[in-house]
């Protein structure tokens, strides 16, 4: 088996439909960001579109968890012990188990919510971030940026479960949230250890994290206003080791991403 498996070789059964993040990014329906100014875009049970959006989000979580599983797995294999010490691989193996459980939970929650595997498309950007050649960048891009996003998403879904009277959704999301806090802490710890003697490498890894954070805030998907479906979960991010400045920076990137979407919409007319 070769090291560094390209994204186009990810193995899937025939139910999965892949789409590129560029296609998703350029989808004219993203322009609805401007319409959101007239009402809340938060995931709330009172909105007519809420069940469909929650199902789509759950499917997104499901495919994201598969890729997180695959990415953590590749990190156990792609590097020798000098680049990724045994203790890091051990943590990644543990993350494999956690992500495998998250896939199982997501499949069952998807069925519970009335969707099925393949109803929505799969974008593979998470795996691409998970398979950059530098393990430090994998940790910043996946464990800090994307697992951080997962904290926001799971907390949003947990609150949605609460608000819509769905204790099963609330229960499952809360358990997954606990795992994600652990993964973010793990990523922060290892990023610090791997780059202790190399500030340039740490700077590059943190820049990559900012890029990923902005990309996954696209179109105002995540933020702290009524216009963002997914809300930044400050309390859980603090538990995971983010300081206030770091959370403020993510909020600023999210606001920037929403402004970018509006600009594109204005240009498109």
């Amino acid at each position, binding site marked *: 088996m070769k090291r560094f*498996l390209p994204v186009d070789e990810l193995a*899937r059964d025939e139910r999965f439909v892949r789409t590129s993040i560029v296609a998703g990014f350029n989808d004219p329906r993203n322009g609805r960001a401007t319409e959101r100014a007239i009402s809340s875009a938060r995931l709330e049970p009172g909105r007519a579109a809420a069940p469909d959006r929650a199902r789509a989000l759950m499917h997104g979580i499901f495919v994201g968890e598969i890729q997180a599983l695959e990415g953590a797995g590749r990190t*156990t294999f792609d590097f020798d*012990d000098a680049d990724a010490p*045994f203790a890091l*691989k051990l943590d990644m193996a543990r993350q494999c*188990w956690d*992500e*495998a459980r998250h896939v199982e939970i997501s499949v069952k929650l998807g069925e519970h919510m009335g969707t099925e595997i393949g109803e929505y498309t799969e974008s593979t950007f998470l795996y691409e971030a998970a398979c950059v050649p530098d393990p430090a960048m994998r940790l910043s891009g996946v464990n800090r940026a994307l697992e951080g996003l997962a904290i926001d998403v799971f907390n949003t879904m947990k609150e949605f479960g609460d608000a819509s009277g769905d204790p099963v959704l609330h229960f499952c999301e809360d358990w997954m949230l606990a795992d994600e806090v652990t993964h973010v802490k793990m990523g922060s710890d290892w990023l610090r250890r791997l780059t202790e003697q190399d500030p340039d490498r740490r700077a590059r890894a943190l820049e990559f994290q900012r890029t990923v954070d902005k990309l996954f805030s696209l179109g105002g998907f995540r933020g702290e206003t009524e216009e963002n479906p997914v809300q930044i979960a400050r309390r859980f991010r603090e538990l995971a080791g983010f300081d206030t400045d770091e959370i403020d920076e993510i909020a600023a990137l999210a606001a920037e991403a929403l402004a970018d979407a509006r600009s594109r919409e204005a240009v498109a007319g």
Partner: protein
Amino acid sequence: MSNDGRSPRPAFAPWDRRELPGLFSVEESARRVGAYSWVEQRLFEALGGWIATVPELDVKLVLGRHCYHHAWHAEQFQARLPELREMNPARCTVPANDGVAALLEAVIEPEATEHTIEKLTGVFRVLLPRKIAAYTYHLNATSSITDAPTQRSLRFILQDEFEDWREGEMLLQSLITTPEAAARAAARAAELEALAVAAGGIAGPGTLGASPTPEVTP
């Protein structure tokens, strides 16, 4: 019999039949534990790498779970090595011989998405049975008093191995649904078994018997 706490009692209750000594010296136990750890490390890395290469969703999830099991086994063995006077565990975490390295290289080699049967056969029909045999031999042969910490780890690890083997075998049986698939699995197992025989088992010659290094006998 008085039970006022002052009457002398034997150190070993009548039902406690543990014996001194065992078949392995400190050095031999460390050598074997280091060899096991090397195998567990290569195996968990391979299972992790394979997750992205198998299209079957249930297999993908099982590989994710088992990946951690084997990583945890490696951690248990690594933690034991300094207690066996091997202060640099990396020095002892090596394949027992070139044949074991060749066996693991062959087990790990399949990559293509259509080779799930070959991947699982190598792990669940060759490597895990070999590990179960080696660990059971160690468990039974070493002193249950002096090497009790290794035994305790081996018991936990064997529990995982039995359960994982069963789950993997069931996956294989559900995938092998044609004579052609059965032939593929059999050919793969035969190819790898030959390598395992040439290596003398996962701990080298003496994996299930007399060790090439001096032993302590009762």
